[in-house]
């Protein structure tokens, strides 16, 4: 057994919508993600990148192939709360305050009230929202809501973060700031991140590796190691190597698009 955080081999997913209505979403996926890596899945819409994330998180069952998360079956990993999940929409519960939203996963683990509060306050500091602990989601901007969602995903200190286009609904400026914050968080906490996006600059800026996927049926078309120096800073986006890698990813995406399916 390898020490990979996520190990995927021969993975396939077919959606059966009844009758002849079969959609092959993913086919023959092999992927290994090591501890501490930041891997982006990028591809045109409908390429199954969100489906792949849900298979890793055991939110969907695979049709064929195997997935190992933290050395276990995904189902076991989910029951052990081995990963935290962040969606494009913050999906905060709007009847709960910011603090109580972050406490929600801890309530599921039956963590006692004092400890829940302590953890929530710590996470609020981490995402710089301490003064908004008592606010309600609808009182926050989109970026702040997403920061709460990230804090919530970190609540039970999972080794793995699964992020499904978390900044997809944010404006460009907020998005860049959130990317910086996520980088900071990732460096400080040393989590493994699997990040779904359809933004090439976002994938290149954040990742240690970009996985380019082909359109339906989704396959791994290319894996590009992003050798930009760490830590990634504001000027990283002006590095000639950054543009180099953008071009590489873009060309791989176009190549994947033209492949007959």
């Amino acid at each position, binding site marked *: 057994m390898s020490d990979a955080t996520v190990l995927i081999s021969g993975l396939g997913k077919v959606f059966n919508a009844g009758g002849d209505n079969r959609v092959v979403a993913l086919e023959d996926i092999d992927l290994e993600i090591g501890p501490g890596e930041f891997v982006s899945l990028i591809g045109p819409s409908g390429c199954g990148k969100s489906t792949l994330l*849900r298979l890793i*998180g*055991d*939110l969907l069952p695979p049709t064929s192939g195997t997935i190992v998360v933290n050395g276990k079956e995904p189902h076991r990993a*989910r*029951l*052990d*709360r081995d*990963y*935290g*999940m962040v*969606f494009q*929409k913050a*999906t905060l*519960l*709007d*009847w709960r305050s910011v603090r109580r939203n972050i406490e*929600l*996963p801890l*309530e*599921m683990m039956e963590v006692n009230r004092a400890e829940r509060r302590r953890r929530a306050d710590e996470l609020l500091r981490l995402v710089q929202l301490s*003064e*908004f602990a008592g*606010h*309600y989601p*609808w*009182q*926050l*901007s989109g970026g*702040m809501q997403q920061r709460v969602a990230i804090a919530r995903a970190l609540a039970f200190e999972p080794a793995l973060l699964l992020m499904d286009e978390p900044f997809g609904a944010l404006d460009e400026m907020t998005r860049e700031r959130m990317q910086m914050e996520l980088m900071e968080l990732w460096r400080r906490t040393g989590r493994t991140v699997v990040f779904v996006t359809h933004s090439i600059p976002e994938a290149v800026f954040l990742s240690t590796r970009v996985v380019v996927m082909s359109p339906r049926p989704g396959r791994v078309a290319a894996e590009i190691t992003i050798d930009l120096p760490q830590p990634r800073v504001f000027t990283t986006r002006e590095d000639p190597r950054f543009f180099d890698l953008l071009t590489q990813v873009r060309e791989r995406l176009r190549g994947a698009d033209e492949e007959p399916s």
Partner: protein
Amino acid sequence: MAAMTTEALRSTTSAGLGHALRKAGWFLVILLILIAGWEGYKWMGSATGGTYPFTSVALPVRPAAIPHVWDILGSLAEPVQRGSDQSTLAFLLEAAWFTWREAAVGFLVGGLIGFGLGIVFALFAPLERGFMPYVIASQTVPLLAIAPMVVVWASRAQLPAWMAVSVIAAYLTFFPVTINTLRGLRSPEATSVELMRSYAASQWATLWKLRVPAALPYIFTALKVSATASVIGAIVGELPASFNVGLGRALLSFSYFFATGPEKLYGAVLVSALLGIFFVGLVTLVERLAVPAVRRVET
């Protein structure tokens, strides 16, 4: 961002008083228009001798059967019966209090049954498919047909008559609550449900932490419908129960004297309507405590 948030908060609280005054103002304007319409009809009917103006087509309601608004209010101050020292208003309020208690018991029981059914149907879809037709059928059967049966069964079971009336009120209450509970429990987005799954949350935890709180605004909307329905159920239920108290009884006996003195019946109708408004207001009050403003469905 912080400034924007506090500003939004301030505007919601300081607007409170002005908002309330405007609401009261509009209420009065509409009330005056309604009274003017009522009196205008009576005046026009009297002037034309009971026909539409410039025609010989009879008006649907004789102007004589429409008492002046002040006569209706005046009749409330008169003794309920010749020689009685109880005013009609006092009599009707007492009747309303009696009827409301029957309605409230029915409302609570029906509300709980409705909520319970909603949860059972949400958790077990086959049960919903199996039982929903009967639930719908139960509401299609005319209440007037069921009420006497319930009264007869209750008396055979040696239950007090008010309980039969409450059963009828509950019968009208549970249906909107079931439908809206079910809809509310299914209202969370797919990602919210996935989120709970990612926490390895049990079905029970997902129900109480996600689905039921999400359903509350829907449930309160249903409870407002049910509040009025339970009053109707109680009033109709009282008719075959042969009480000598309650609004149903008062409406029935005042209707005997409609031809000679319609004011009293209109007075009873007015009090019945006010009872409904009172009950809905009470539910709205509880809703304010239970559901934050942004999530309420304004009615």
